[in-house]
């Protein structure tokens, strides 16, 4: 149900029956390796191309989530999936394998929460019994499409981010045990005129701030009511800017409860410049790490704000600025 200007409240509180996170070798060395269900030691996953490897990651995440919930593919009404590849090939080819009625979503790295919000909305509005929300990204495939060949020796600036190799999925249903999706805020595009694809954190920070403030305004909640407010992939640069923007707006946000998935997922020793990014960044951290912490009772109420930079290689070359978006989903247990 619409509340306020851009938020949905899910009165039936759809349940996340099960969730999964799949990662690559670099994620296996990361700070949250224990929260991944499957970790691969080969970036190619034994496939012929990075694109096929990404598809396999997504398929495994979907299968794992369905399996963990003790359900069958036929029980799932819809698959909502997004990725970074042109024409959403990873999602569409995965949907072909799963043969579940499918809607492809593109919100760049915000796709994870876009999918989860829509999945909850479908269940809440009685349009579905069970919906699978999934996203994936692959470092090699994303670098190839958006930047340079992976082995090309271009020096990255300290503001650059590392696209996470992995996939995350969450199975949302009407009844059952588990964390519940209670509300969502759909973000609007914020474009502050930044055009550097190696500095997406700074471009996305205002979008994250805008959505968090809209969420609190629409639902009339205080940031202090959350145990954790996590942005998707602002990285160290964008995270700091977001914190300072809240200060600048006189909007109080508890510092110790404000985190960023892109900073959490890797260790200090891993050379990822400002942090992680990619559709799978917020997906694996939320559907793996955060939900595990909720199930263990460590966290009761969280707000995940997945941020997306909606650029294309073409728009960057044509000197367009980067339109950014953020979608927030609140999860309670």
């Amino acid at each position, binding site marked *: 149900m619409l509340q306020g200007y851009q938020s949905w409240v899910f009165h039936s509180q759809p349940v996340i029956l099960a969730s999964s996170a799949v990662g690559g070798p670099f994620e296996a060395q990361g700070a949250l390796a224990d929260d991944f269900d499957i970790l691969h030691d080969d970036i190619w996953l034994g496939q*012929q*191309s*990075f*694109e096929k490897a990404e598809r396999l990651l997504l398929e495994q995440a979907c299968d794992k989530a369905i399996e963990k919930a003790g359900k069958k593919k036929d029980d799932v009404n819809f698959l909502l999936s997004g990725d970074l590849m042109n024409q959403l090939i990873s999602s569409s080819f995965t949907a072909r394998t799963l043969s579940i009625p499918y809607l492809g979503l593109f919100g760049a790295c915000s796709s994870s929460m876009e999918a989860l919000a829509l999945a909850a909305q479908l269940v809440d509005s009685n349009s579905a019994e069970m919906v699978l929300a999934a996203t994936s990204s692959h470092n090699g495939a994303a670098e*190839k499409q958006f930047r*340079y*060949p*992976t*082995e*090309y*020796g*271009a*020096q*990255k*600036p*300290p*503001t650059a981010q590392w696209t996470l190799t992995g996939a995350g999925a969450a199975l949302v249903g009407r009844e059952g045990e588990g964390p519940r999706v209670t509300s969502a805020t759909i973000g609007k595009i914020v*474009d*502050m*005129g*930044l055009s550097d694809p190696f*500095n997406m954190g*700074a471009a996305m*920070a*205002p979008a994250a701030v805008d959505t968090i403030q809209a969420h609190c305004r629409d639902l009339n909640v205080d940031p202090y009511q959350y145990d954790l407010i996590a942005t998707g992939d602002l990285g160290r*640069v964008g995270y*700091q*800017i977001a914190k*300072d*923007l809240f200060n*600048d707006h006189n909007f109080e946000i508890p510092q110790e409860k404000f985190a960023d998935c892109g900073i959490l997922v890797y260790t200090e020793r891993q*050379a990822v410049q400002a942090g992680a990014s990619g559709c799978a960044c917020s997906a694996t951290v939320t559907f793996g790490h955060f939900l595990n912490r909720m199930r263990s009772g460590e966290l009761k109420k969280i707000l995940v704000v997945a941020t997306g930079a909606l650029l294309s290689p073409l728009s960057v070359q044509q000197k367009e600025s980067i339109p950014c978006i953020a979608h927030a989903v609140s999860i309670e247990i």
Partner: protein
Amino acid sequence: MSNKMKKSLSPAQQKYQVFAKVREPSRPVLLNSFRAFIVGGIICTIGQAFQFIYMTFFNFTEVTASNPTVASLIIIATILTGFGVYDHISQYAGGGTIVPVTGFANTLVSAAIEHRSEGYLLGVGGNMFKIAGPVIAYGVVSAFVVTIVRFIIIELGGM
């Protein structure tokens, strides 16, 4: 920020860009330049060593030794790229590994490897010069311009 860019930005955008700029870590230009100097210098020294070897142990003169020297550096860069090492050296060395001929080899080989999955013809063949292409195109154009300038100066009796 250029004035043209500034004009197309709203006051709020301009204000934010200033706000964000001071919070972004800037590229460590001095350190990068120093590393580029050291690593670039090492590559040139290796090249020089090759030249001496070809001149001392094989039948090459100072002029003719340059061809096998360049070829040796290209082969080394190609192997390092193939084993996935070159990009890590480059992240450290920056311009030091891009400017020498090894960097040029890296652009070709990395693009060729990357697009192998799209086939030999359209994948490798079509994309091999994706990064190196502009260097060749503008290299030829600037060589042409320089030649014209030189020709005119000679014709005017300047040299």
